[in-house]
């Protein structure tokens, strides 16, 4: 026969544990976070715990770098060069088949390694990130912007090429570690090429 009322003590213990974790694994646990002007803008620690209230929408919790919302296409900030070569790998590998691409063709009818059109049906997208994993050109990445609701989907939830294009600077801002690794690889490739 168990002691009456021990469940109250168990509940209090859980509450106390959450309270302590707010300080040790919430406020205190900031390892690897990217800060700007003293505020965390990108979280690296996804095990953030504790009972911290964020006054959304006036306040926004900084997003973890690994967050996947919708795909975006990257263009180089310096010259606007669209990295996508319309190879179609992302469209092939997409599980719900939400991507469709039209390859650009030159005046002689030959394929040019650029997309003429690029559509993503964002309501079909399952946010898996396979497109970004399989892209050999770092041309498609997952965005963090999630405030996307609207009253209809035909016009506002089917994104075309211009809607999808974001600059490499934006990509570097929301994926700082991945950006650093990509740039290092790119620099290495360029060095080998010029050697």
């Amino acid at each position, binding site marked *: 026969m168990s002691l009456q009322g021990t469940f109250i003590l168990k509940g209090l213990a859980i509450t106390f544990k959450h309270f302590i974790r707010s300080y040790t694994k919430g406020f205190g646990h900031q390892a690897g976070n990217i800060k700007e002007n003293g505020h965390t803008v990108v979280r690296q620690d996804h095990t953030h715990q504790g009972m911290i209230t964020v006054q959304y929408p006036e306040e926004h919790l900084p997003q973890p770098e690994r967050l996947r919302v919708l795909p*975006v296409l990257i263009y180089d900030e310096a*010259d*606007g060069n669209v990295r996508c070569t319309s190879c179609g790998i992302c469209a092939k590998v997409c599980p719900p088949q939400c991507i469709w691409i039209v390859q650009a063709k030159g*005046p002689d009818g030959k394929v040019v390694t*650029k997309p003429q059109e690029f559509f993503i049906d964002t309501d079909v997208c399952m946010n898996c990130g396979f497109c970004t994993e399989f892209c050999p050109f770092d041309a498609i990445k997952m965005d963090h912007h999630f405030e996307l609701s609207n009253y209809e989907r035909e016009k506002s939830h089917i994104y075309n090429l211009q*809607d999808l*294009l*974001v600059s490499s*600077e*934006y990509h570097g801002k929301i994926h700082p570690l991945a950006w650093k690794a990509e740039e290092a690889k790119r620099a290495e490739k360029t060095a080998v090429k010029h050697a």
Partner: protein
Amino acid sequence: MMPSAIFAELRLGPCVIKDPDRRQSVSADLAAATASLEALKAKAGAEVKDDPAVTLMAYAVMYQSARAFVHAAGYHITNFRALLSALNELYVKTGKLDTALVEGLEKSQEVGSGTSTFIVQAEQWLNKAKELTR
């Protein structure tokens, strides 16, 4: 990025940043566009044929000039739809820029025919951008 041509809506998103300090980078943008135009003219040669590589170079000049326009207005924009919308709202509607030039910037991405037109437009873009800083 929500498909919207309305700049007022796009301004609320993460890709349009009000940054008055960007005005200082206009001269660097123009220098980049000028260098790109010189490279374009060297590649195109005297007799211009339809060539996707040359069209893309013309697109680079237009893009860098467009960036100068947007920086001059005190914005930093990291989405192409927002860039086009900002140009329409801030410059086309006020008569400082032609609609045809903004359409040329968009169409030149498609690298179809019309290389000679895009080269002319690229030069017009740069000239208009230089007028901003006078």
